[in-house]
């Protein structure tokens, strides 16, 4: 199996698979139209203390539209968050604060801002576009028995980012990232990310993400359960009136 993978990589190289082409293949991967998942997010600080939250999320269009409801801890229950990404204008983000009985629009003006207090930033969660990054395959390596391309992504000069570059271990047959290291502009590693998938209805679906901020010694683990796919969620579902209703 390993030999076969190596042969595939060598053949790919012979036929000159470029970084951009690899990224294209990753983008072309078939994904569900929408999904509903329950998540458990565990934050661990440098002293080993943890904070756990459980959330329910419904997404559409590869996460471009998303609603998240907080289920626990009790203090957070009922808080919900709506995000709609736009290509031509700033993303729309709203939050339902049940204690205030108010919906508030919020903004993360910096892509490096943390998402929900986790070690993932908005930048980490967004797809890297070829007009913003230079992609290059810099080698191949096995990661947990899977043959991988080592994809280097360097931001173009006009991009405002906290990162200097990323190296991603991309499964050479499934074209999904299995591991990623993100470095700062001085070349020091900032974050390490690990991705675990399972196959549901022919899709490669993420079941766990672990992100460690090496410099801050803080980590976030996100585990996905009760995954339901292609439920036919309509666009109108991503509206603030649904924020106030916790779905079953």
């Amino acid at each position, binding site marked *: 199996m390993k030999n076969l993978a190596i042969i595939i990589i060598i053949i790919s190289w012979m036929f000159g698979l470029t970084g951009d082409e690899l990224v294209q293949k990753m983008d072309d991967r078939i994904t569900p139209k929408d999904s509903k998942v329950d998540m458990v997010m565990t934050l661990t600080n440098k002293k080993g203390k943890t904070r756990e939250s459980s959330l329910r999320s419904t997404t559409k269009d590869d996460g471009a539209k998303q609603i998240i409801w907080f289920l626990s801890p009790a203090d957070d229950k009922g808080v919900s968050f709506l995000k709609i990404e736009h290509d031509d204008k700033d993303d729309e983000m709203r939050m339902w*604060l*049940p204690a205030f009985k108010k919906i508030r*629009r*919020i903004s993360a003006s910096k892509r490096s801002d943390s998402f929900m207090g986790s070690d993932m930033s908005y930048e980490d969660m967004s797809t890297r576009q070829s007009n913003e990054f230079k992609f290059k395959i810099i080698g191949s390596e096995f990661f947990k028995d899977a043959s991988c391309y080592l994809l280097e992504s360097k931001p173009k000069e006009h991009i405002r980012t906290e990162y200097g570059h990323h190296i991603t271990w991309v499964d050479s047959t499934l074209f999904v990232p299995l591991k990623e290291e993100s470095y700062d502009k001085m070349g020091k590693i900032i974050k390490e990310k690990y991705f675990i998938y399972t196959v549901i209805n022919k899709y490669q679906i993420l079941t766990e993400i672990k992100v460690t901020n090496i410099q801050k010694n803080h980590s976030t683990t996100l585990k996905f359960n009760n995954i339901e796919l292609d439920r036919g969620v309509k666009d109108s579902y991503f509206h603030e009136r649904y924020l106030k209703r916790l779905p079953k």
Partner: protein
Amino acid sequence: MTHKLKRWALNQALEHSRRTVLLTLFITVIIGSGVRFIFLDDNIMNMLPKDIDSRRIWDEVIEDFKYTDFMFIAFGNSGGNILNSEALSFAWELSEKFDDIPHVDEVISISTLNRMDSDDGFLEVGDLMPHKNMTEEEVASLSDYLKSNSNISSRILSKDADYINIILRPKSDHDFPGMVAAVSNITASYQNQYEFHFGGQPHLTGAIPALIKTETQQLMLLGLFIMAAILLINLRSLPAVGMVLSVIFLSALSMMGFMGWVYHFTQTSRFTFSMVNTSMPIVLLTIANSDGVHILSRFFREARKHKDVKKALTMTMNQLMLPIFLTSITTTAAFLTMVSSPIATMTGYGATIGFGILWAWILSSTYLPAVIHLKKWNMQNTAISKPSILENLIHRFGRSILEYPKRILATGVVIVVVSSIGIWFINVEVNIINLFKPGNEIRESTLFLDREMAGSMNLIVKVEGDLKDPEVLNKMVDIQNYISKFPTVNTTFSIADVIKEMHKSIMDNDPKFETIPETRGKINNLFTMYSMSGDPDDFEALVNYEYETGLITAMMQSVSTKEIVIMADQIKAYIEEMGSEKFITETSGMMMFLKDFTNLVVQSSINSIILSIVIILFIAWIFFRHWKFGLLSVIPLTSAVILNFGLMGWFGVDLSHFTALLTSIIIGVGVDFAIHYISEFIHYSKNGIGTDEISRQVVDDVGYPILLDVFSNMGFGALIASSLIPLVHMGGLMVFAMISTSLGTLTILASVMEINKQNLYKTGNA
């Protein structure tokens, strides 16, 4: 035993002079070669003990949160408006550069802080400065925001908005000198653009060692020059001065080498060369100088009498071997009492200087007589044939003192008793700002930060309770309001401020909602909302992970330890009065620790001084073979100690850890004179000089080297010219110790012995 040793040493010096000189030089070089292993430790924080309660509390706060004391860098130009795009761009650039310093954990500045805006139901947590080069509109918006958010602007902007304050939070206290040097390197090239002011405890502790080193080196060289000049004027022989100085340098070399070797073999931090150790060479110079001065001046007197080098040298060494040995071991013993100091490096200090003193004794007993013997002396030379001005002076001085011994004694006792009353007025207090003379750059910068910015130091109140409970948070606000009323406090901040700001923002910036929300649910909603765009570390310095412990930080002007204690006590009383069933508080910070540390050092220094006096008493008792001489030997020293502390009380000089420590160090310099005096008295009582003449003869013989020693060491009074008060104190105390112990010997001790000479003559003769 001592006679055998004395004979052997004298025999080596006189019969094998060349071999003795070469051998002592060779051994000194071997010991001195350890200098290369000396480990310089510039960080004052490493000297401070970790087992004091207030230090433990402070360390816990740092462990739970972050380092609590900041370094401040203010830049701008007086009277100008700093809120312009050029200055803001510079603040951005500086902040980025400071952030790259490895010692810096966090940069708090106009370019790193967040703002919360609310408009038409839109809440934004964004940067105060969204980018480096701001447009005029953005600058105006920033300016307006800061005007309406004084809790933010008070930390990063001067009162007249003409300076920007950049606050650096160190990662730890491991290398403040390195951090200060890195900041200085960054700001050096911009000094012509803006006026810079630096402050804060990390800056003070980081900058002081380098300043002390530089000023000590310069003033010590000046002191040495003055010492050499005074020796030359009085000894009137260049080779003689060279001989005294060679003993001094060889002793200092071996002392430093010893320290290096011990560190090399043990790697113990007790033998690192810290800021305190910079005083070691000065202290040893004065002690080694004393040995050389006594031997050479005595040699000249004996040579004048006997016109024969060997005989004069034999007479000199026969008479001085014992007192020099005694002064060496008593001074070493006095320094060894420092092992009880709460400052770890003082153990190394005491042991190292003790070794230096003993090596100075070996050199004075072997190398120096051998060198004197090797030199071809011209007996007709005025240095030998005629007494010096100082010698004539002491002759006249001695006669007048011994004429009225009772009056002299009574005057001395009255002075000591009156000054002793001052001990009750001694004020144990440290104000860091007072370590620098007015006009010193650090002092002026600190005063500027105190006057124009948020201040240069802080006080921490740790609050333990449910920090999402509105009642607890409201009490935190009350405590902050109470602390803010102290005139020395410029601003306070805590998690309660952030909650109030979030509350106002979510309620469409309505100022009436700049309060703690009334329910826990609302508070929690605010935190959750903030987490959607804020960094998880944003509150790390304000509240712990579980929201169970928070800090109230009061940024304030530089005050003394006494004032901080009064403030802490009043805060405690206020909290108790307001009722605090749901939370507990503790006051902490560098100043609280410094207060305890100062008390501890003062206590241990006083113990060390008392122990030194007792040890000296017993050593003198044993070697002079009678308790009376033991008691007499400590009279000048005890009088000097009483005078020192008494006058400090009368003249309002605060007793700080510096002054206490320096007193215990420098007092060791002044133990010699009495021993020389008593030793000479016993010598003459055994050698047939009658009771009528004995005191005059002793004053003539001992008075001159004592005065020459005192005068030559006055050179180190040059330290008084330093801009650093610890060095001024050191110079002042050195001069004071020299004058008080020499005068104590030549007046009080001389009078006591003159009055009791019949009795003491018999005792000495026995």
